[in-house]
């Protein structure tokens, strides 16, 4: 069973490597948000430094949402999703593997790019670990919650917009705690926010694959 899950993640990474445009779209969007704000706000260093965590978080949220509708669409269109549901492996585990590979392709690059953008905004180096950590947890929450929306809107016209409408309210707690952690003055102030965010991710990890598999069965019916 583990071999099936590992093979699925490997396959998704291989597919992403053979078609890198999709990964780069998300990353490019995130980088653009980071690059355009200073131009629009002007050369107020202090203001930019104060806004930086918020910009990073909103940018990450929007990029994550942009990539979300791709989670199942390709597998749905070519019939692989049906074969996945006919696999002897439980569907919720397969979905967890899909979410993991989606995070590796769409979430991890954002996390890795964030420190570079932070430096660009003049954030103190000691703030970088907690910003990065908050984004690691945040992108996980985005991927797990987005999977439910992606499964529910599968095969619908205008699915992208529907995902946004369905998933945005669910993203708000992650945004509030995550941005608060990133904004905190020091590591001590950030800890409670990070803990709340981590508990949110834990809850999503337990519930989302199960809800997503139920939604997928409905969409494929």
């Amino acid at each position: 069973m583990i071999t099936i899950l590992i093979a699925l993640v490997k396959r998704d990474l291989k597919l992403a490597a053979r078609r890198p445009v999709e990964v780069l779209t998300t990353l490019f969007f995130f980088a653009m948000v980071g690059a355009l704000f200073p131009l629009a706000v002007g050369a107020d260093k202090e203001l930019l430094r104060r806004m930086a965590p918020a910009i990073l978080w909103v940018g990450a949220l929007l990029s994550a949402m942009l990539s979300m509708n791709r989670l199942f669409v390709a597998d749905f269109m070519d019939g692989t999703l049906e074969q996945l549901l006919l696999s002897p492996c439980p569907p919720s585990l397969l979905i967890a593997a899909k979410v993991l590979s989606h995070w590796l392709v769409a979430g991890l690059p954002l996390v890795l790019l964030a420190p570079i953008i932070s430096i660009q905004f003049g954030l103190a180096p000691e703030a970088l670990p907690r910003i990065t950590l908050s984004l690691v947890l945040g992108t996980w929450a985005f991927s797990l919650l987005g999977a439910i929306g992606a499964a529910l809107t599968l095969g619908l016209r205008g699915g992208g917009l529907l995902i946004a409408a369905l998933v945005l309210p669910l993203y708000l707690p992650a945004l509030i705690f995550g941005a608060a952690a990133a904004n905190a003055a020091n590591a001590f102030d950030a800890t409670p926010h990070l803990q709340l965010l981590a508990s949110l991710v834990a809850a999503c990890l337990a519930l989302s694959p199960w809800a997503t598999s139920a939604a997928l069965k409905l969409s494929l019916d």
Partner: protein
Amino acid sequence: MTLQTQQLSCARAGTVLFDMLDLMVRPGEALKVSGPNGAGKSSLLRILCGLTEPTSGHVRWQGRAIHRQPDLLHRAVFYFGHHSALKDDLTAIENLRMATLLSGRPCSSEQARQALTALGLGEFKHTMVGHLSQGQRRRVSLARLALTPQPRLLILDEPFNALDQPALAQLTSLLRQHLFEGAVLVYTTHQDMPLDGLLHHEVCLARTCPATVTNALASPAWVVRPMGIAA
């Protein structure tokens, strides 16, 4: 290893496609599902492998209801649907190995190579599937039939479409071999396929089907008729 349905009904968009359908297919037997377009053939096949919920009734595999023990069915089934389930950006051999891994019956690359050769795709094994023709893609999908360990339940939706004569011959001989070894086959086709000479049933899913007329007194909307006896 028997596939059985009990009082199976399916309604789509307010229309009853079939109702109170009782079927039984034993090991080594084939069931051809026929009927005009939109009669519910694909829906029946999807219900048989648990992808679609029936409106009422049960499907049993090895005597167990498939919604209770899906893994029992999933370990045995090979479903070939409208889509080929292939990735354009993977080579034929990568696609085949991935498909077998996902179905829980992994194969080595040597076995995958032999299976592709058996379906006449030996020279295309390292070609990206996106560069293959429609018929060749279907052959890559069907190459799973040439592998061991073999699926015990074959549910094939229009498997003969878009195949040329040699591929048809290869496929029918593979199917014969599977049936000979005790697999259960359920398939749809609009062609007169040379799968005769085997214990073979046909179910016709339409009220206007000619088969129904001959049995109009005995039967409601469908007829199960034997098409030949095992030689």
